[in-house]
Every structure is written in C-alpha cells, then in structure tokens.
C-alpha cells in the first residue's frame, strides 16, 4: 500500500469504520510512513476539536422575531387563536351575575339594532366596494382615456383611497359599538379579541407601508384589503358576541366564540 492508496482510508480509520483487513493493511503502511502518521494525527485532532466546539444558545431576540412572523402568518391564514366555545360558555357560567346585569332593556335593544344596522350597512358598502374586481393596470391602460402611465397610477390611487375611506368609516363605527359594549364581555375574551385586533392592525400598518412604496402592486393592495376585511369581520363578530352575552344566550355565545376569527 502506498500513500495515495492509504490516505482516503485515514478518515475511516479515525472514525473506526474500517474493516479489520483494511485496517491491518493501513497500520502496516503507517508503521513505515511518517507523513501518513502525521496526517492521521492531524485528522484526529481536527475531529476532536470539532466535537469540542461549544454549543451556542439562540438569542431570545430571535424568538421575538419568530413570534411576530408566526402571528402575522396566522392572522393572514385566518387562524387566530380564540377561546374555545366551551371556554367561553364556561366563563359565562362562572359569572351569572355579570350576564344578568347586562340584560338589555327594550329601548337599548332597539337602539343597538339601529346602530348595528347602520354599521353593517357601512361595512357592507365597504366590502362590496372592495370585493368588486378592481381594474388592473392592463385593463386601465387599454382604455384610451387612461393611456398615460401617470394617469393609470393616479386613477388606481384615487380608487384605493376611496375604498380605504369606506373601510375606515365602517371600522370606526364598529369599533365604537364594540367599545361601548365591551364591558359585557368576559375580560379574558375581551383581552384575546383586543390582542387579535392588534395583530390585524399591525398587518394593516405594514400593508399600507408596502402599498405606499408600490402603489400599483396587486399583492400589496390585496394584502391591505384582506386585513381591512378581516378587521371588519372580527369587529362584527365581537358585536354579535356582546349582544348574545347581554341576552344571556350561552348557546349563541358559544357558537359565535367558536366561529370568531375563522372568517
């Protein structure tokens, strides 16, 4: 056995994976060859040093970023975590006096229904406005009246701004109604709802920033209106939940709590 035949087997000798015959041949060569003995010693040292490398702990800051990613993705996938229907119903059972305290008067129900009708109308108008197919850049540019690129951008931006206003109006109304009735909610449920609204708000802020830098981006636009729609849906469900809790309807409460966030 010469050096060039010997060297590929040295790593296996270091790892102890050579057959007995191959090992015997290799050791015979090593007795005569100082160069290969030197190489073997170096390979062993490298392996031992590698095994001795310290383990490094992941910085906690990475988890914060991973969590933010997860929450944004989960919100986008409509997979926000809400208390299970059982939890929501159980928390109501544990506080019967609270439910009774909020049994609404006839006048309050009528006022609430009227307010809700206005809000739902506003929200629906916003949803209708946004869910109708928006003109794509190519569609707009096929119209001679909008042939200039600058005009295309201007037109899209104007339409987006109008739609955004509709959403904001609907959301403002829903937020007010939800805030007014929030005391009827179990604190735990209210906290979860608030947290999820925070996640959606963050998505809205990020989408707006993306849209600002790329006004004609379909992806940025869809992302913004998806987040806005999600917020409208969540607020609407919140109001429905408040109404059911005020009525003391445990089955209705559990049903709504179970559907919250599934959008």
């Amino acid at each position, binding site marked *: 056995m010469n050096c060039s035949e010997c060297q590929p087997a040295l790593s296996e000798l270091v790892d102890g994976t050579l057959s007995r015959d191959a090992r015997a041949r290799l050791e015979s060569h090593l007795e005569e060859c100082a160069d290969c003995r030197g190489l073997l010693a*170096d390979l062993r040292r490298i392996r031992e040093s590698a095994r*001795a490398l310290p383990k490094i702990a*992941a910085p906690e800051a990475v*988890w914060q970023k991973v969590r933010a990613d997860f929450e944004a993705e989960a919100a986008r996938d409509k*997979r926000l975590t809400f208390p299970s229907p059982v939890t929501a119903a159980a928390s109501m059972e544990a506080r019967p006096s609270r439910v009774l305290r909020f049994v609404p008067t006839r006048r309050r129900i009528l006022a609430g229904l009227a307010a809700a009708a206005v809000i739902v109308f506003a929200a629906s108008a916003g949803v209708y406005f946004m869910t109708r197919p928006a003109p794509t850049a190519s569609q707009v540019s096929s119209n001679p009246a909008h042939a200039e690129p600058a005009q295309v951008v201007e037109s899209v931006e104007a339409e987006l701004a109008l739609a955004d206003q509709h959403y904001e109006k609907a959301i403002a109304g829903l937020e007010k109604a939800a805030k007014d009735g929030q005391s009827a909610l179990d604190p735990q449920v209210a906290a979860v709802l608030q947290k999820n609204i925070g996640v959606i708000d963050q998505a809205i802020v990020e989408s707006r920033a993306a849209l600002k830098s790329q006004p004609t981006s379909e992806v940025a636009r869809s992302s913004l209106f998806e987040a806005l729609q999600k917020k409208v849906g969540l607020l609407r469900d919140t109001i429905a939940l408040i109404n059911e809790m005020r009525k003391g309807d445990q089955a209705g409460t559990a049903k709504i709590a179970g559907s919250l966030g599934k959008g």
Partner: protein
Amino acid sequence: MSDIGIGDRELAARCLAGDREAFEGLYRQHAHRLYNLAYRMAGSTEADDLLQDVFLQAYRKLGSYKGESSLGTWLYRLAMNLCLDHLRSRQGKMALVTDSLDQEDAAPVVSQERPAEAHAARLDLEQAIEALPPSYRAAFVLHDVEGYQHDEVAKLLGIAEGSSKSLLHKARHRLRTLLGAEGRSE
C-alpha cells in the same frame, strides 16, 4: 436521533391551527439544535436570520408534514436545506470559493505561529469551517460537530453514504490545509 415523538403530528396540527403556545413549544424544543446548525453552517452573523427563516418556512410547510420522521428530523432537514441554499446563494454572489473537488490549495486562515491557547484554536477552527465549500461544510458539521453517522448524514443531505464519507474526508483535508497544520505534525 430519529425517534418519532408521540405528539409530533398533534403538535404540527396545533401550530397550523394558529395555536401560539404550541408554536412556541415547537420553537423552544428545537431552536437550540437548529441554531447551532445555522451558526456552524452560515456563521455567527447570519445564524439569527437563518433561524428566523427556518421557523417561518416551517410554519408555511407544516401542512406537508405527515409524520414519516420525527418533527425534529423534519425541521433539521428543512434547516439544512435553507443553510445550503443560503450558502450557495452567497457563494454565487461572492464567487470566493468553489465547490470543486479538486481545489486543495486554499489559503491558510492561520499563521504558522498559531497561538497555542484552546480559545484561539477554536476560533481558528470556526473560521476554517466557514471557509469550506457548502457540501464539505455540511458533511463536516453534521458528522464531526453534530455527531451524526454517515447513514444519517446521507439521508439529511440526500446523497449516498459513500459520498458522505468522501465529502467528510475532503473536508478534513481542506481544514488541515486551512489550519496550516501540514508539515507540523509529530
């Protein structure tokens, strides 16, 4: 290293359903090992971003996890693929090193008056590992640093066992050159 945890599929399902506690449990259970892989494969400056990306991709791909292997193995393979993609992309951009099996003339990362202290030796080794081509580095990190056997390395990298042995051998030789150890043994 391939024991399938009893609750792996359940844990994956809970994460997919948006359960943050479950996702944090997944992170806490595996982040340490994955971070070390990213740290050894990509270096300290990029390990944080890589670990973040591993978990983002994991969430997005959890739907494809069918429980054939443990969630830990599944994550590890995902992390290794991301590390290799990252290295190849960086290598393509920088064109500093090649993956040629013939290249044995790499410049040493240490001087001949290498300090004797263990700390300095460790830094030398870490620096030398970072100078290895991606495939050499992957085989070396998995086998010599993380302690995987060749059959496991082969599965993780999607190569034959013989290729794993060959890559490891070449990696050790390259490291010997990079560490300036040639001619100083015995």
